[in-house]
């Protein structure tokens, strides 16, 4: 771990940092796309590094949840190769962008970084831990482990959180992002080399929440979504972070569209924006969960995307976007025997 990281940020595993530094020095890559320390210990942010000196700010710890795939759209237009650090689930988004010809595989040097589940500071706050000053236990120390022994250094098992009210502890597993509880697996789908160890943190059913809502009465469903969506402030963070929302011109930026760049005026607009946004990524969404992670209002936006994924799986065959860069997407293909739209009423 580097010494003197700012704001108590945990730094990056030495093995990863050394390799990145070598690739940059050799000239294999022109720049590095990774994370740097934010203003607090728990919010590292995506950043470019162009020199070895700049790499002193490089961070890769348990809070590096941000999916860097989308930045590769812009990076693909730059001179030279860009080294990008992708976690297993981020590689799905990268594959999807490859399929849509939005990123150039030749311009990317992908380091598949190990991931043992990423942390969510909101989850920590939800446990009643407020006034956070620094957090220990988020750093990753990848060690060579003997085959057969348990993987070590994927992330300490307990987080020690210093707050203005004193020191608190929380098990690592209780502070995970929602998406890590429905982990897609520890395999990277596309990479040039792998560094570090990963673990599958899945401990919940991906569609359990969707099923719970489906079982509600129409009145309950309506009330539930009204309550959630009325919190929306239309900051467009969900759209901006979404790797599937990669249109050059977005329909929501059109001044011909009444609800561009303004807060929802009533319950209809609350739904309209989110239905349309989910629809635009239907069949392309890899369920990376970035929308829910960045929402400042804590709206469970993944519930929309997962509903579409669940329907697609049930009606048109199981499909995981981004699993590879070749398969046809469900909404740009069809089958002669597809169900009629009337099935929605029949399913009840």
């Amino acid at each position, binding site marked *: 771990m580097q010494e003197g990281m700012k704001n108590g940020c945990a730094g990056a595993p030495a093995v990863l940092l050394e390799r990145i530094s070598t690739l940059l020095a050799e000239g294999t890559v022109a720049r590095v796309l990774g994370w740097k320390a934010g203003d607090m210990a728990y919010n590292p942010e995506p950043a470019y590094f162009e020199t070895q000196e700049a790499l002193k700010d490089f961070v890769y710890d348990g809070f590096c949840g941000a999916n860097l795939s989308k930045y590769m759209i812009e990076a693909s237009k730059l001179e030279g190769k860009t080294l990008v650090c992708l976690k297993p689930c981020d590689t799905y988004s990268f594959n999807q962008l490859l399929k849509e010809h939005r990123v150039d595989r030749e311009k990317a040097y992908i380091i598949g970084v190990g991931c043992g589940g990423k942390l969510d500071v909101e989850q920590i706050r939800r446990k009643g831990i407020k006034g956070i000053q620094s957090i220990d236990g988020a750093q990753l120390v990848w060690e060579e482990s003997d085959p057969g022994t348990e993987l070590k250094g994927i992330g300490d098992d307990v987080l020690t959180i210093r707050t203005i009210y004193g020191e608190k502890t929380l098990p690592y597993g209780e502070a995970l992002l929602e998406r890590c509880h429905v982990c897609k697996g520890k395999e990277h789908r596309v990479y040039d080399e792998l560094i570090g160890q990963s673990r599958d943190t899945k401990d919940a059913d991906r569609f359990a929440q969707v099923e719970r*809502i489906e079982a509600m009465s129409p009145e309950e469903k309506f009330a539930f979504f009204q309550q959630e969506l009325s919190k929306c402030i239309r900051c467009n963070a969900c759209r901006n972070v979404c790797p599937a929302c990669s249109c050059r011109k977005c329909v929501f930026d059109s001044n011909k569209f009444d609800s561009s760049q303004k807060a929802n005026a009533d*319950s*209809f607009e609350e739904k309209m924006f989110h239905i349309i946004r989910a629809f635009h990524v239907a069949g392309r969404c890899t369920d990376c969960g970035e929308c829910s992670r960045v929402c400042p209002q804590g709206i469970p936006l993944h519930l929309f995307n997962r*509903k579409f994924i669940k329907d697609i799986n049930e009606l*048109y065959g199981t499909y995981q976007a981004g699993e590879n860069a070749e398969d046809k997407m469900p909404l740009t293909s*069809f089958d002669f025997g597809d169900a009629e739209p*009337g099935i929605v009423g029949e399913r009840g």
Partner: protein
Amino acid sequence: MPMKDEFKPKIVAFCCNWCSYAGADLAGSSRLTYPADVKIIRVPCSCRVNPMFILRAFEKGADGVILCGCHPGDCHYSTGNYYARRRMTLLFSMLDYLGVENGRTRVEWVSAAEGVKFSQTMNEFVEKIHSLGKNVRLEDLRCRKE
């Protein structure tokens, strides 16, 4: 004479140019009746209908939206209605998930020779919307004339 407060539903029917619009024409020339509450919007193909069109119709005060296109296999552009079918299935399912009654939306395949089916479908659909009443869940309140 209709009562002043009688519910007159507003129904938008998106009809594809090649089959359903001609089907509506046939219904007219065959002197078959269907309620005047149905407003037809002609589209080149059922696949032209963006999910947003349907939501916008509701926003502007429609009480029901029906999409009519060529029978699967008969699309003038070969495959348009197959894509429309998948899209609408997902949209209707999403509206159901949000707690909007799914009876307010419908897809029906009507060919140019099916004037009778067009008239029957519209009569049934208007009756259904009558039974559901006014659309209050997806309407933009600012569009309401009060």
